[in-house]
């Protein structure tokens, strides 16, 4: 992380965010341009993150108004958690990226959705499918290691865990994982060294999108 002391910040500045998310805030900083990081660090020391936030946005607005607009739209949900049903890991053109993401390609646009192609730190590639309102409605992954399911599924992680537990109790061992529960459809398959899978939220599928074709 390398940004010690941020854990001490009051979560109030971030409204609905919980302390848990602050480590992600910290992580997110390293991806910001140096200029903004400096401002943030100064104000973090003063313990006034709310002020920092406002100052950063104002500066961004003045310096790079286009970027600023995007940042205003994306910053809070980006740093919040960026999982299924939430905002993507990459905040559009501003280039602010979750620290667990090693690299990403700019969004491709489909009919009623956008796609972000990310490479996670562990080398696994993730595609995020984002609807018009900025929510991730589907994810696909493939690569040498399982992605952090907590990172990908966010508040839907308990559904995954419960399904795994139920399947295990019903005799499933070691094979692929298929979840269809609580509005979450998920497949985790492949073999060690070549993991693959997908997940989507049925309630968030944009009208007219053929999710099976999308996730092929």
């Amino acid at each position, binding site marked *: 992380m390398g940004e010690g002391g941020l854990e001490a910040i009051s979560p109030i500045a971030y409204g609905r965010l919980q302390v848990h998310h602050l480590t992600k805030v910290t992580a997110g900083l390293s991806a910001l341009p140096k200029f903004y990081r400096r401002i943030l660090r100064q104000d973090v020391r003063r313990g006034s993150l709310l002020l920092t936030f406002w100052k950063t946005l104002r500066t961004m607005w003045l310096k790079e108004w286009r970027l600023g607009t995007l940042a205003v739209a994306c910053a809070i949900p980006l740093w919040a958690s960026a999982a299924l049903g939430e905002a993507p890991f990459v905040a559009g053109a501003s280039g602010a990226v979750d620290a667990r993401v090693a690299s990403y390609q700019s969004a491709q646009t489909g009919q009623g959705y956008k796609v972000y192609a990310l490479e996670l730190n562990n080398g696994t590639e993730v595609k995020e499918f984002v609807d018009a309102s900025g929510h991730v409605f589907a994810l696909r992954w493939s690569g040498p290691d399982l992605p952090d399911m907590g990172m990908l599924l966010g508040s839907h992680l308990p559904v995954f865990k419960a399904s795994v537990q139920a399947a295990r109790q019903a005799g499933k061992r070691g094979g692929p994982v298929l979840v269809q529960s609580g509005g979450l459809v998920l497949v985790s*398959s492949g073999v060690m060294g070549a993991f693959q899978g997908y997940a989507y939220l049925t309630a968030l599928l944009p009208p007219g999108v053929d999710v099976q074709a999308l996730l092929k």
Partner: protein
Amino acid sequence: MTRLFLLLWLLLTLAACGGGSSNSPVLLVAATDVNVADLLVDSGPDGAGVNQLYTSVTICKPGSTTLCKTIDHVLVDTGSVGLRLLASEVPTDLQLSAATSTDGNVLLGCANFLDGSFAWGPLTIADVKLGGLTAANTTVQLVGHSAYDRLQTKCSESGEPIIAASDLGANGILGLGLSKQDCGSACEAQGRRSARNGKYFSCVNPTCSNVAGTTLAIDKQLQQVVARFPTDNNGFAIQMDSVPSAGAANATGKMIFGLGTRANNYFPTLRVLATNSQGYLYGALSSNSVLAGGNFPNTFLDTGSNGIFFDSNLPNCTPPHDSGFYCPLADIAVNVLLGSVGAVQAGGGFTLTNPAASFQKGNAALPTLGGSMGAPELLDLGLPFFYGKTVVIGIAGMSATGVGSSAATGPFYAL
């Protein structure tokens, strides 16, 4: 062990009856069996195992013949690489030394499984014995070590950590996959994944207040144990006895180490099937009036999967059985054709049955268990496929002359 003694007794008795020369048979047995380990399928340490393949592994303090422990019910998994033992099964009086980084801090391993469960814990160095062969000074992961559980979120937040035998249905995992190491060159200093490989971590200080991702030289990584044997190290065969399609409480088999190295490990009639760089074969399943069959470009043989998993039009089971399993209305005989990169070369077969009755009986060996894969290109030939067959695994980069009609270099399967 009991089986071994029975066998010795039997041979000694036979030798005695056969004319009185009592010295050679014992030597003969020892010489023949040194590269053989027993395999077992039973309900396992948690009593709930289904199609879980076990062997016993002996670990010793390097160089010692007395500071040893034999651990039973270690899962044999051709889908992973490296020996991972529950820390609770490895007593401290073995005096195993920790594997450490260049600055002397403890190294730890992390392995994620498909269901989000994960193996986290320190690496240690031990002599590892399978049958009568020893892989000296081999890296072994101790999983669920109480001193490091507090740092497990560094490994994963995807699911449940493996701590106890009930979490795994086994006392450890013996990963005997196609590769020589768990990660290989990608986790080395110059590797593509480098220190952020997610598989290896190092304590940041002697008290291990935290851990950080680390690179790890290939020879320090978790190893395909067979490849580290001084002899018989180019591959191995899994020979499982047949199990009736109705299932059985137990099943047995053998692992024979080495290919073409001894009289007991020549397999000239098997077909060698080289895998692609990802470890996949090309597979095809036959069609009939019930099953659509089809082609599966990414086919693999995984004793760590307890069913044969592929996508099809077959009906899924309903509760209380997992919907990931197939519950066909009648038995379905399926032919499998396997090949290297599109060229079909070897065949096999299996039958799929509604597993409900066998589940109810509490059978641990179910040769007809199948289910959905969730990926149309993948065919996971799990343990049921192995019953009644000899399946050979050729380790990557190792050559063998005893399998098929000519010399072959791993990674390959032969059947």
